């Protein structure tokens, strides 16, 4: 009988390995014949470690488990689906999963990450097969028609980038996957790469064959060693099976894939800085134009997409653009992989069509704060995202609505803070983070972020109302200079959390207690 224990780094961070060891030992002790499968996480991190058993073709879940529960689980014959206080019933039927609409993440957590046969049996490589049967133009059109927008944060239509690269004339083109998932509160890229790496490989292969790129790079941050290992392992498996390398699937197309590892630099998640870093240089922003689609990696036409963008492509090709575009609202089509994090009761991955309300996400799926104290602030979209107060819970989670509400979707991370949070402290951190991570090229970001920290410190420590007012006004001027003057989104968006904190939580900016 098959027992599934996730080998995802988050699950392992709270003891999954110990559970796996304990289950093996207990099974041996009791003479129970089991097959232990280390699958990826299904993304319900609040349920980790989520142990599953396959009974009659159905997966039954137990969780969250610890190594201490293993003996009682065996006592309850969990391997036959036996009842136990941690029983969650059929995994698919757990409400938290059942209410999601998993498209990009449909295989995540089901399979053992490097099991290529399993991947194919779950519908993997259907997208590539379809793409290889179509003309390059048709593949690009399919991506255009799906409405897929860059999931990395900018929300630029992926198909338009692809079309530009397709139309560019060059002796070499590249596909670069941005897996430098540095935004706090986001971890979907990591989970996808660790749990379902072939989906990303398939997406990149489709991109490469569509635009005539024969070399791909995945730029993964060094903080994700397990994702790096999973991708490298999967590339080896795919290459051996003819899904990468020369003449993939007998199509006549070549596509080689390489993993590049970051070295601790948030700004390298900006696409041009990432290109510089892949080229082995300082991760400094390039000014645009030229667009990377025309002069990108090593000066050649380059598709740059985020992990989730590229990982959505196989499903779009396999099931058709229309099916994908049928999800979502307005100009935000398809599904979004939301990541619930921070001070939250039920944190993890929620994939659903755009348009769900913030409330449904954080209270519905998330169950409110982890501490149980009142919710005070929600930061959406990473360190460059706005801080919302509870008055904004009705906002629809899509690109346009969030901008209208004074925020942004970013990479889809949602971080909850309870009432203990001080938003001046958070604003200061936003500036501090910018000062630490700024590449140092443009003046507003290079000097402005340090001045920002200093100005907020003055506000926080002052007991003089006039000085506080003066420094707030200076801070607002600075935010304007950074927003309008910065070369890239790092400096340009740092004012967003700062100003939103100032506007939505003014009471935190009234200086030191008198």
């Amino acid at each position: 009988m098959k027992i599934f224990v996730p080998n995802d780094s988050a699950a392992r961070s709270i003891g999954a390995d110990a559970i796996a060891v304990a289950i093996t030992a207990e099974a041996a002790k009791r003479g129970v014949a089991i097959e232990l499968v280390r699958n990826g996480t299904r993304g319900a991190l609040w349920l980790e470690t989520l142990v599953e058993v396959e009974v009659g073709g159905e997966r039954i879940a137990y969780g969250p488990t610890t190594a201490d529960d293993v003996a009682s689980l065996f006592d309850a014959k969990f391997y036959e689906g036996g009842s136990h206080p941690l029983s969650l019933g059929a995994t698919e039927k757990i409400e938290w999963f059942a209410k999601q609409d998993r498209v990009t993440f449909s295989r995540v957590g089901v399979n053992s990450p490097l099991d290529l046969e399993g991947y194919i049996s779950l519908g993997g490589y259907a997208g590539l097969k379809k793409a290889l049967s179509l003309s390059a133009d048709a593949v690009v059109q399919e991506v255009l028609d799906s409405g897929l927008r860059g999931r990395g944060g900018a929300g630029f239509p992926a198909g338009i980038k692809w079309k530009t690269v397709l139309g560019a004339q060059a002796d070499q083109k590249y596909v670069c996957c941005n897996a430098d998932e540095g935004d706090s509160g986001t971890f979907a890229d990591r989970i996808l790469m660790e749990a379902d790496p072939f989906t990303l490989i398939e997406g990149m292969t489709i991109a490469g064959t569509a635009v005539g790129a024969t070399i791909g790079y995945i730029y993964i941050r060094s903080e994700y060693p397990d994702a790096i290992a999973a991708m490298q392992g999967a590339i080896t498996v795919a290459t051996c099976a003819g899904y990468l390398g020369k003449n993939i699937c007998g199509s006549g197309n070549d596509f080689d894939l390489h993993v590049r590892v970051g070295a601790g630099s948030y700004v390298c998640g900006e696409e041009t800085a990432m290109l510089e870093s892949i080229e082995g240089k300082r991760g400094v922003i390039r000014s645009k134009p030229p667009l990377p689609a025309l002069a990108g990696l090593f000066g050649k036409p380059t598709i740059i997409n985020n992990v989730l963008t590229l990982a959505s492509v196989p499903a779009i090709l396999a099931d058709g653009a229309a099916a994908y575009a049928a999800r979502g609202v307005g100009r935000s089509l398809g599904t979004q992989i939301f990541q619930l994090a921070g001070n939250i009761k039920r944190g993890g991955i929620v994939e659903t069509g755009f348009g769900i309300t913030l409330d449904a996400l954080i209270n519905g799926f998330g169950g409110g704060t982890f501490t149980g104290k009142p919710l005070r602030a929600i930061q959406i979209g990473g360190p460059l995202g706005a801080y919302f107060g509870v008055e904004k819970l009705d906002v629809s989670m899509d690109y346009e609505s969030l901008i209208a509400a004074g925020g942004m979707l970013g990479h889809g991370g949602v971080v909850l803070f309870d009432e203990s949070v001080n938003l001046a402290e958070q604003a200061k951190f936003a500036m501090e983070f910018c000062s630490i991570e700024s590449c140092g090229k443009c003046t507003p970001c290079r000097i402005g972020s340090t001045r920002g920290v200093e100005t907020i410190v003055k506000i926080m420590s002052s007991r003089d109302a006039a000085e506080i007012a003066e420094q707030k006004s200076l801070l607002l001027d600075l935010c304007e200079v950074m927003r309008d003057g910065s070369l890239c989104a790092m400096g340009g968006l740092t004012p967003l959390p700062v100003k939103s904190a100032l506007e939505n939580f003014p009471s935190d900016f009234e200086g030191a207690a008198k």
Partner: protein
Amino acid sequence: MTLIMEPDFGTPAGKSAKLVTVEIDGKSVEVPEDTSIMRAAALCGVDIPKLCATDTLKSFGSCRLCVVEIDGRNGTPSSCTTPVADGMKVSTESARLSKLRQGVMELYLSDHPKECEVGDQCKVHGMAKQVGLTDVRYDGANHLDLEKDQSNPYFTFDSTECIVCNRCVRACDEVQGTFALTIENRGFEARVSSGGTSFIESECVSCGACVQACPTGALKEKALLTIGQPTRSVVTTCAYCGVGCSFKAEMKGDELIRMIPLKAGGANEGHSCVKGRFAYGYATHSDRITKPMIREKITDEFREVSWDEAIAFAANGLKKIQAEYGADAIGGITSSRCTNEEVYVVQKMIRAAFGNNNVDTCARVCHSPTGYGLGKAFGTSAGTQDFESVNYSDVIMVIGANPAAAHPVFASRMKQAVRRGAKLIVIDPRVTETVKSARVHADHHLQLLPGTNVAVINALAHVIVTEGLVDRNFVNERCDTESFAAWEKFIAQPENSPEALEATTRVPAETVRAAARMFASAPNGAIYYGLGVTEHSQGSTMVMGIANLAMATGNIGRKGVGVNPLRGQNNVQGSCDMGSFPHELPGYRHISGDAVRDIYNKKWGVELRPVPGMRIPNMFDAALAGQFRGLYVHGEDIAQSDPNTVHVHAALRSMDMVIVQDLFINETAKFAHVFLPGTSFLEKDGTFTNAERRINRVRPVMSSKTGKSEWEATALLSAAMGYPMPYKDSAEIMDEIAETTPTFNGVSFAHLDEVGSVQWPCNDANPLGTPTMHINEFVRGEGKFNLTTYVPTDEKSNRKFPLLLTTGRILSQYNVGAQTRRTGNVAWHSEDILDIHESDAQMRGIADGSWVKLSSRVGETTMRARITETVPAGVVYTTFHFPESGANVITTDYSDWATNCPEYKVTAVEISPSASGPTPISDHGIDGDSQLDSIVRMANQIAKSAPANAGIEIEVAHHIEQFWTPLMRSRLMNDVDRSKLDPIVLKAMELAGVK
């Protein structure tokens, strides 16, 4: 006179042929579509605030001051990085933009000194004023306590004034191509760094590009801080190498503050090297001699005298010699360091006042084979291209040259071309900086054994001919097909194959084949070469071999191709053009031509002798033979720079009147009876002609330290010898040159002042000069192929002298070092070093940095050794910049068969450890009849090496007639032991030509 400020359009000019019209602040302007908004604005007179942008560098977009608003577009894009589009409407001023710029300047000033050391030279405060910023509300962390880096002798790096605009880093990358600067750290801590070490310890080559680019006082000339701000500038030409860079000499009163490379300079386009930019201090060095001096005997002390007394003393001495030993017993040497006008006057004095053709020039010892070989092949003794041409090359072949050290400003251009994708082939015995430097690596390095150039060029040509890579259309249309057919047959012989020659050249045959294919298949293939080609026994053969290769591959007559000698001295080209060779008058016209002589006979009112005079080595031989007793040496240090020092010293010591005109008491002056003070380039008024035939103006930036123009001293001597030359100024001399020399017909100071510079030929047909030569046809009509049989030099390594020494230059020093040794450049290189391969060093027990004795069959010297992989086993290398080590003590008197250009590049030597450093040169007498030995050696060499196009005896006879003095011919006929002569020479002697 005021300070010249060249306009800065912010970003480089667009290159697109497509023009678009944009409207900027209501002004309409038409520009190439790849023009930035910033440049378009500047072109219609709108000055957008900027700090990080400058038109010599690609746009960067870091300072964020140049933001603009564009109709129909969101945000405030930077105008330097945003290209124009047709119909675009741009506003450069608005309340929003103004506030944004003030906000940015407020940030800058929050981390900048309140007052800058260089005043207005720092643009930060000025820019703050320009954008209307009045007060800075921030105080906080800053970099104002960082220490200055004073390690470079010429400029300081003061990080406190640095605004991290990256202009210096970009200049080092894009303009110079050294990549010595970077930004270290990131964010607020991002600072300019010379790679984590001080500037002097860094890879910085002190070209000055960073200083030039810096908009603040962070990188500034020390002179600016010690002397003060300049008030006027004079545009002039550098007097170091053959690149001939244009500079603005920025002055305060009569004091030179700094040399700023001129963006409008055709040769350098705003770039410079450490020598031209900074190493001008010799010109005002306290060692300068500014008053004439004389002495009866060279063992006496010199005594200062008036000009009149010195001139009279010199003239009397020369006249006395002529009275006693005949008109041919005196002669002179012109200087490639001096202006065309000065050179012209010297050769005129020798021909007209001395009454003989005993004039030669220091080009004898560097590029005389270029004149000979290119003249034979193309009909003109000069390079075919301008420097800019290299931008259009697909394959660049560099032979026997190390432009990175010797022609750095050209090297920067070349390296840019390579980094843009041009392929590079280098033929050199050493792994030079040209073969391998940061981000440039030769695609093929043919690391040949010194002395085997001709074998390599023949092997390359063999591959091209036998693999069907000849450009038949070009050859058929443009070349002498008969000579081609003969050459094709010759070169296709198996003995010229790379495989057959591998053992000789040590270059793997496959490398030769690959390089040949690469060169022949390039749409545009260009060849650049230097003294590693010319300074050999086969120098002229090699030049002809290069010309053959260029013609066979169709690489002549357009941009991106050609044969390009990299000239050593600033005015080698000019001094040759000006008739400095004993066999030809200005414009390379042989002295035997009646029509040509007639022009000068009429103009000068004399009767010129129709026979060639002596070359420099002929003079030395004749001196030792007692036939030649008086010499006027104009700005050349033959005692240090010419080979076989002992022989040269003996010759000089045997003369009765040696007149040296120079800035300093050089090695030659130690043998002089008269010393006439010369002027530095900063005091001269005239022209230099660089390696691309570009005639540049040299303007006096300060008054003459000697009270006279240099040509005036020559004219005085000439008058004292009985031939007055009453020119009123140098412009008048150039007018005479133009009048008498067809290629200079259109040149005048007035014309040059108007157009900047011209490349000769400059005449009615080409009033703006001729950047590319031989476009539709060769100057000689059809390009001529010459047979280039490889004749090994007699200078071979043997048991006693098993190593081959080759010599060259380094970046910071120049030639004999008379100038650069008197500047801060000694910080980089203060002695000559012997480079030796580890295996050769180990075998001899030589440690890195230890003293070694270096001996050849003619002499020995001592210097320090450096163990390096840049030379192969069996080859050692040194420079000849310092008289103490006197590298020429050991070089031999072997020379090019055609021109007597010395074989500096090959000397068989042995090396042994030495307990101590250099000792004084031990001069000794020269035994035997060295003139007769030379005559035999030269005649036999010609017989072996001359291309046998028209029957070898006829060629030899013709050659001797063209280039030998009557006395040498007579000694050949009468005094030589005929058993020592090659049978071909004997046959030639039977022909009518040799009388």
